């Protein structure tokens, strides 16, 4: 339970606050329009559909304001930097920005649906009122003209259009109606192209269609124009609706019931969204400036299995372990930025990324690099970042268990290198005395470079007599008969056949009970930090094992599971 509060408490709190604000706005504006005196006559024509349209509009204003903020990644990095005092849990919330963006998007979609349905009803009922389909008061109200000395309530003024087409005509000839249709259409296209299936497989469709948000926001700002939602204004002498509602034929002819006056309010949405729009503009400008900064290639290495390593240098670039950057290569695509976790340590004077062949963009990049002459600089590359909350917690524990599954092994390259550098220079920030590294993958294809890294570390540790600083185990979960036969034949070899490492490859998944027991035995009175970069299912398993094997007794081992989000 305590673990849940530490891992999820702040997120849940933020969500509760956000939902609370949404509910408050909805209820407040619903009651404002449903009970307000100045809307009495409007409500007579529209019923509760007025309030049902205005309440989601308020929630929409709030959420459209919020939606741009989580995607200003440079702004978030700035915030993260200035939060250094406020603890890692606060800063980790900033890593969940995309989840929040999606949540706000769902709310916008839901509220748009409610808002649109309510307005459909509104327009229909305005139309019926205008054509005398309802009671005497409705007809009287609808008949109020838009002239010099009278004001209208019912925004539908023309009656010579075909009755069934009047709503459509009205919507398409008013600013509010037209912008409403256009931005709803933009929203629908954005949503259908953001579905997980499309996003994961056809990223470009998602990315380019998402830019319809520009149309969305432009339309949104003008959507409230036109004074369509109208309320009763004070007249002199005042028009009391309780007194006058049943005497509509006498309006203007008796002193206590002058002709009522109506007016609409100006568009207000821009108050809500102008700030985030400016911030987002600054964000895109910053990304552009960053992109213009020169990035030098220090080294370009082609690893087996089509893995490209780029060692890059940029002025003023400072990174932490476990962070990622966005790369843009105009020679391949002007508009695409792709994220890559950095595999270099902060102690090095360059930063590196290892890029696997995983789609159009990466394939083209690898192709270009393969055709470069020896020693030449690569194509112009824009780098945005670094982003992500650093994983410095790794250095705080005396004993660390690092578990990397599949592609999740990438941030550990950075972490292991950094630990080794800190150890060599006896950095006081490093409390780690022993590391257990578990590498799980289906096959070592595309990770040979990581095996090389482990080999280098292994060698250096042997030279210093620190052979047992790092214990690593590789688990090949996708083995088959040929693997087994191969291993059996080379059983007596000193180094492993698959990786060339001293420690042998295991086949199948690790038996965590055994692993945890081993760690307990070898580190009796220590605090062990467990870090995972891999599937959530494995996270749950490890969390349970940590709980099982931890002992309150300080003379025994204590395990802490860190829910990292690399």
């Amino acid at each position, binding site marked *: 339970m305590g673990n849940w509060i530490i891992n999820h408490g702040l997120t849940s709190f933020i969500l509760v606050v956000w939902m609370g604000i949404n509910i408050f706005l909805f209820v407040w504006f619903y009651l404002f329009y449903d009970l307000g005196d100045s809307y009495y006559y409007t409500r007579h024509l529209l019923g509760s559909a007025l309030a049902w349209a205005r309440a989601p509009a308020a929630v929409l204003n709030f959420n459209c304001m919020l939606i741009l903020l989580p995607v200003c990644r440079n702004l978030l990095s700035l915030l993260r930097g200035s939060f250094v005092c406020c603890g890692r849990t606060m800063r980790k919330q900033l890593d969940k920005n995309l989840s929040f963006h999606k949540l706000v998007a769902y709310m916008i979609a839901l509220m748009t649906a409610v808002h649109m*349905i309510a307005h459909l009803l509104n327009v229909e009922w305005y139309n019926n009122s205008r054509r005398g389909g309802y009671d005497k008061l409705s007809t009287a109200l609808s008949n109020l003209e838009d002239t010099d000395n009278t004001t209208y309530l019912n925004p539908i003024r023309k009656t010579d259009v075909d009755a069934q087409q009047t709503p459509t005509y009205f919507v398409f000839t008013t600013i509010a109606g037209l912008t409403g249709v256009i931005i709803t*259409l933009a929203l629908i296209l954005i949503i*259908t*192209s953001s579905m997980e299936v499309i996003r994961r497989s*056809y990223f470009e*469709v998602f990315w380019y269609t998402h830019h319809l948000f520009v149309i969305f926001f432009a339309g949104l700002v003008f959507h409230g124009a036109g004074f369509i939602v109208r309320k009763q204004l004070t007249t002199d002498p005042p028009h009391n609706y309780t007194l006058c509602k049943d005497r509509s034929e006498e309006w203007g002819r008796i002193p206590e019931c002058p002709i009522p006056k109506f007016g609409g309010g100006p568009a207000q949405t821009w108050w809500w969204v102008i700030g985030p729009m400016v911030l987002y503009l600054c964000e895109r400008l910053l990304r552009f400036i960053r992109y213009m900064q020169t990035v030098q290639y220090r080294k370009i290495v082609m690893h087996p299995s089509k893995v490209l390593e780029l060692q890059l240098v940029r002025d003023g670039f400072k990174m932490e372990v476990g962070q990622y950057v966005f790369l843009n290569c105009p020679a391949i695509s002007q508009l695409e930025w792709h994220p890559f976790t950095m595999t270099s340590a902060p102690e090095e004077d360059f930063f590196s990324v290892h890029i696997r062949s995983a789609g*159009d963009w990466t394939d083209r990049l690898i192709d270009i690099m393969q055709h470069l002459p020896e020693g030449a600089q690569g194509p112009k590359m824009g780098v945005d970042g670094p982003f992500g909350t650093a994983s410095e917690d790794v250095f705080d524990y005396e004993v660390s268990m690092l578990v990397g599954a599949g592609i999740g092994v990438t941030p550990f390259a950075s972490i292991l290198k950094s630990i080794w550098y800190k150890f060599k220079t006896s950095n006081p920030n490093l409390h780690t005395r022993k590391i257990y590294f578990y590498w799980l993958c289906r096959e070592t294809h595309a990770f040979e470079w990581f095996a090389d890294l482990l080999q280098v570390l292994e060698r250096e540790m042997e030279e210093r007599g620190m052979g047992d600083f790092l214990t690593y185990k590789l688990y090949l979960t996708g083995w088959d008969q040929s693997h087994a036969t191969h291993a059996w034949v080379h059983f007596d070899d000193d180094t492993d056949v698959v990786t060339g490492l001293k420690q042998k490859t295991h086949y199948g998944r690790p038996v965590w009970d055994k692993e945890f027991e081993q760690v307990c035995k070898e580190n009796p009175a220590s605090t062990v930090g467990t870090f995972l970069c891999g599937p959530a299912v494995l996270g749950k398993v490890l969390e349970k094992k940590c709980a099982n094997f931890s002992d309150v007794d300080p003379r025994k081992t204590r395990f802490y599971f860190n829910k990292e989000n690399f």
Partner: protein
Amino acid sequence: MGKIEWAMWANEQALASGLILLTGGIVGVAGQFRGWQFAAYAIAAGAFVCLLEYPRSKRTKGTSVERTGQYCFTVCVKSFGPLTRNYYVRAFLHAALSVPAGFLLATVLGCVCLGIASLIYLAAAIRGEHWEPILPKKEMVRKPDDSMKNPPQNPPPRPPPETRRKRVDDLEGAAYDNPIPVGE
């Protein structure tokens, strides 16, 4: 954008359009709008489009992710053969279905969305895509290798019983030489 299968996006768009048509139609009928007959049509058309578009097609490249419970819909849609396989037919069908919905405000959004879906399907059809059902893979029955079928008929060769009997009086001589050397 070379590897895009437009049909995947067209499918999402068409499914969304079906739902929007359905919703607009329900509002039109429930609110007893003028021209509610068009809304009633939109309910039917929307439901039909949803049923047609629910089963996802199998992708030509990569893993296809099914929608929950789509198997029965896949079977139904598959049974129409070339009518549902061909995307030109779908493009034309969606375009035709969307037209009547344009005559009522409540359904006009569904009409436009379905029209857009129709255009994307047209693009997919021009690029030669077609609908493939996602069917469960038949389990491959692993046949045991031939050698397993013919176990040895004869016992392994052994020396005659006299030499096999353990000679306790002469243990040194009891150990017999292997005809083929074993080990280094």
